[in-house]
């Protein structure tokens, strides 16, 4: 499988403090990778760096072999749901079309091809029937799918998702997990941050445990059997709920 996203020995400093160090991470096309770590571990910062929004203090990020630059690379980005102005009076289709704004360039309106891309993206996340509904009238799961469709509209080779399942009920998390796995199987590189450990263990091809640096990475089957890196990542003891959950999952 081709490597779509590559972080090579990346370090990031925020306000003079090093928040990420020695990050080496490859995400291949067709692979769903879950980035797991406690709050403040640097998950979102790593996603921002992969997007080219945060300049690394050291190392480099490559997308399809080229240095990352916002708007230039074939990356679809799905932010946390609360980042989006859901009270904005806009339909689902028009919200998804904004995913093409950078590609269309200044002063150009979406053409037939752009609307076809929007229709394909809506179809992919099964929201075609809600295309004309105002985004403010959608449920949490539907909103998440709108954000995924917006990211898919530009037909990217890689998808970055920031806590896509946060605040959703179990059935919706299950449905979205299946969708993300399918999006990876179709040939995209999918990297998502998550606090949903069970969902990640169940769906992801690879887990990456992060706390300022990568503590461990590997297939869920391998990582779940070894509580040591989890303990380092989360600072959790052998009697913690996390340790019990890992034991049960193994």
């Amino acid at each position, binding site marked *: 499988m081709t490597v779509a996203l590559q972080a090579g020995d990346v370090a990031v400093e925020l306000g003079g403090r090093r928040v990420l160090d020695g990050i080496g991470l490859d995400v291949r096309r067709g692979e769903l990778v879950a980035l797991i770590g406690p709050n403040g571990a640097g998950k979102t910062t790593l996603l*921002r760096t992969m*997007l*080219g*929004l945060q300049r690394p203090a050291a190392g480099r990020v490559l997308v399809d072999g080229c240095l990352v*630059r*916002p*708007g*230039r690379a074939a*990356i679809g*980005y799905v*932010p946390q749901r609360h*980042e*989006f*102005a859901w009270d*904005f*009076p*806009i*339909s689902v289709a*028009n*919200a998804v*079309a*904004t*995913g093409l*704004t*950078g*590609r*269309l360039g*200044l*002063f150009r*309106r*979406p053409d037939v091809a752009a609307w076809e891309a929007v229709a394909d993206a809506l179809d992919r996340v099964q929201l075609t029937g809600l295309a004309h509904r*105002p985004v*403010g*009238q959608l449920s949490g799961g539907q909103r998440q799918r709108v954000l995924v469709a*917006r990211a898919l509209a530009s037909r990217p080779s890689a998808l970055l998702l920031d806590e896509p399942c946060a605040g959703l009920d179990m059935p919706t998390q299950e449905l979205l997990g299946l969708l993300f796995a399918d999006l990876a199987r179709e040939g995209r590189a999918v990297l998502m941050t998550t606090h949903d450990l069970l969902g990640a263990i169940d769906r992801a091809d690879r887990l990456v445990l992060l706390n300022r640096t990568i503590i461990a990475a590997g297939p869920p089957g391998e990582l779940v059997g070894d509580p040591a890196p989890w303990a380092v990542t989360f600072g959790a003891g052998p009697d913690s709920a996390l340790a019990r959950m890992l034991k049960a999952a193994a």
Partner: protein
Amino acid sequence: MSLTDFFTDLFNPDLAFLPKALAVAVMSSIVCGVVGTYVVLRGMAFIGDAVAHAVFPGLAVAFVVSGNLVLGGTIAGVLTAVLVAVFSQNRRLKEDSIIGIFFAAAFALGIVIISRAPGHAGSLQQFLFGSITGIPDSDLYVVGGTALFVLLAVFSLHKEFVTISLDRESARALGLRVFWLDLALYVLVTLAVVISVQTIGNILVLALLVTPAAAARLLTDRLGIMMILAPLIGALSAFLGLYISWSWDFPAGGTIVLVLTVVFLAAWAFSPHQGVLARWPARRASRSVGAADPLSSELVS
């Protein structure tokens, strides 16, 4: 005064200032309605107020040196917008604090400058509360040209403005220059304010930016319709306000704003889906269901 008498006065050559005032009021209402849609949807009312006050020193300088008011106001407004944008990069202070500092400073500077002009009390009142009698022919063309430019700019940058309004981080990831687009929007707000100041006044111009767009938001869930309704509400209110002000000898600016407020209150009460009256039966029903079964109230909401 009947509406017919008002129309007669509009075509009376001895009252040439009246159609000019109406044209400027309607044009500025249309522009403010369109630009105000973004102001309301992005929660930028405070920066709209700041820009409205910030244009004052520019107007004052232009007045003192007998220069072009629109140009003077625009330079001062844009300068303040740039200062706010630059100083806001310092994360220790929130943007609203920076805005508060600069708009008060700009307004104070305007008062100091205008105090040096002979007969400044009258000029000050004219700037603060607007006047329909002092609009020269040249300003009519400047306002018309500026209005056309603002509308063209808004429609050209519409998809960019929508994208950054929805989610700034994703907009950056798409390669949009969010800082420059913000600045472009501030400049357009400034231009809309400057062309409106003459009829409605510096203090009340915020109402022209915010009230029609807020009323339109209550009436629709569609951005396109909101951008048509807001200028329509603004223009009709400007016409009605000027008519009432002319009939009863009220100040034009204040009357236009009061008409706008009435329209807003009507939208708040009678909006088909979000109006208080439309939601009242549903609330009553949910209360009675909730009283019967504590769990069902959550299902209804």
